[in-house]
């Protein structure tokens, strides 16, 4: 066939974002396209950069605590837990058992809330509008518990270095139990809408595949790593805050595609509810604050502490020079590191799948840019 019957195809550069509804914030992706095929991407980030790590060096340990909530703002409680654990490590203290149990309950509820945001927006990106409303309905219930506990719904500042900020409120256990009881059937409801939905499967299966080796190469953690078949969860591998006491599974899948990541996150929500159920059954009595002074002043030293945040490994590397202000706080954000794999996941695919892949990455730009 003579070549002349075809039009010349030249590379087209298309700018996606920063103001784009399916980039989940202010992410700008420069796409290089050949027709509908993606030849390459370049992420432009930093629009939400607020210099959190610089701020840390100019605040005391206690003053910096609320700032960490503003990074991954849909999972603020996880951020707070990681920071408090890191400073506690430097101080060589542990939160008392009661504080640990309440921490686990709130963190897991927050994991559910975070995954619900992911599910709602991810489904919306693909074109399923209904799940968004379902997800926000249940998320509201979790946020109500946070609000009753600490007065804030999103940027909670729920924990304090050494334990908890507040004692639980009257009816806390009842409300948490009611949430767990209500939540299981709701997940069934979402699954009914999506799991065997032909359009859903068609849009997700085989899209944005990241194998286990690629995940490790790119430092990708969290549900994305587990969807590629690696049974690794920091709550099991290096338990913190008493996670070793609870009985739960690490859901994994084999293919590492967008559909598998969906399945893994759905299972994780069920497991999170299971952990909350066990934790709320017997919250130990006792103090909620460990032996920390009014002035937090860790000895000279450094520590790297990480937790299993909803998005992956969230680490804090804190260096102390013996003063009341941290000398350096480095946040190892899961979103930032996971986003780097975007190029590998969409290269060679179709432009329509870019939206699906950004959704499945479950990034929060506040955490990417810090």
């Amino acid at each position, binding site marked *: 066939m003579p070549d002349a019957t075809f039009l010349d195809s030249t590379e087209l550069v298309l700018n996606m974002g920063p103001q784009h509804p399916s980039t989940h914030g202010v992410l700008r992706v420069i796409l290089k396209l050949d027709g509908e095929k993606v030849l390459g991407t370049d992420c432009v980030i930093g629009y939400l950069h607020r210099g959190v790590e610089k701020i840390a060096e100019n605040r005391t340990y206690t003053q910096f605590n609320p700032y960490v909530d503003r990074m991954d703002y849909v999972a603020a409680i996880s951020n707070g837990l990681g920071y408090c654990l890191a400073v506690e490590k430097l101080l060589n203290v542990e939160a008392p058992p009661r504080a640990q149990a309440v921490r686990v309950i709130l963190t897991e509820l927050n994991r559910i809330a975070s995954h619900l945001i992911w599910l709602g927006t991810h489904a919306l990106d693909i074109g399923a509008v209904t799940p968004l409303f379902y997800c926000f309905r249940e998320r509201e219930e979790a946020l109500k518990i946070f609000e009753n506990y600490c007065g804030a719904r999103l940027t909670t500042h729920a924990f304090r270095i050494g334990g908890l900020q507040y004692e639980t409120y009257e009816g806390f256990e009842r409300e948490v139990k009611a949430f767990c009881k209500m939540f299981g059937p709701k997940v069934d409801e979402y699954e009914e809408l999506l799991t065997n939905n032909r359009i859903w499967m068609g849009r997700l299966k085989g899209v944005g595949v990241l194998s286990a080796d690629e995940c490790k190469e790119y430092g990708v953690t969290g549900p994305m790593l587990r969807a590629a078949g690696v049974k690794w969860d920091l709550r099991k*591998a290096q338990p913190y805050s008493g996670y070793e006491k609870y009985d739960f599974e690490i859901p994994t899948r084999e293919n590492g595609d967008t559909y598998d990541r969906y399945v893994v996150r759905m299972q994780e929500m069920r497991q999170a509810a299971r952990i909350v159920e066990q934790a709320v059954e017997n919250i130990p009595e006792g103090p909620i604050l460990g032996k920390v002074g009014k002035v937090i002043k860790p000895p000279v030293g450094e520590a790297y502490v990480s937790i299993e945040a909803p998005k992956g490994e969230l680490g804090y590397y804190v260096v102390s020079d013996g003063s009341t202000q941290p000398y350096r706080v480095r946040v190892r954000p899961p979103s930032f590191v996971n986003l780097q794999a975007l190029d590998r996941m969409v290269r060679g695919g179709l432009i329509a799948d870019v939206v699906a892949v950004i959704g499945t990455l479950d990034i929060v730009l506040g955490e990417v840019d810090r």
Partner: protein
Amino acid sequence: MPDEQKPEGSEGPPPAQGEAPKPQAKPAAPAAKPAPPKPAAPAPKPPAVMMAMPWDSDLARDLKERFPGRVLATSTYLGQNFIVATPEGAIPVLEFLKLEADFDYLVDITAVDWPKRAERFDLVYVVYSFPRNERVRIKTAIADGFHPQTAVDVHLTANWLEREVFDMFGIEFAGHPDMRRILMPEEWEGYPLRKDYSIIQQDQRWVRENLGIESGQ
């Protein structure tokens, strides 16, 4: 954890790391250490160096054997192990850990600025091993203007992590495929996480030209 034992190695943050050959008898003389002058306070002052203990294990011994002169110390603090390496030794150690000791996941790369020290920056690599369930840090002290070798050839993750270190500290990595700023605007002057960069400092020219205002404060 190991907490109130006697200090032995003294590779704390303030003195140049790994200068003194490792576990001598006592922290003989980190002599010219400009300890933060906190006069008065008759109470027993906590020491101004990190009370790290020597870390002894098969891996630590192996490392010292393989990289004589390049691995300066293997230490542990609060139950967390770290290796102090020379600037040239960091990448070979990283590669060795990945290929022969199963440390297959580069968790993080970051830096710490110690402006009063001759080797101004600490470059810190955090690696984790899935099979061993173990985490180790590699630390190396580098001077301002030194171009450390990139880790991208060993771990692809290093790409963005090193770009962020460059963006925030101005440490340029030799051999990096894409050494651009990542969070700050590309034309921005100055490196925000350096200690001599004030918290209210900004690139006035950039703010004026791009935002059309006199000051972002």
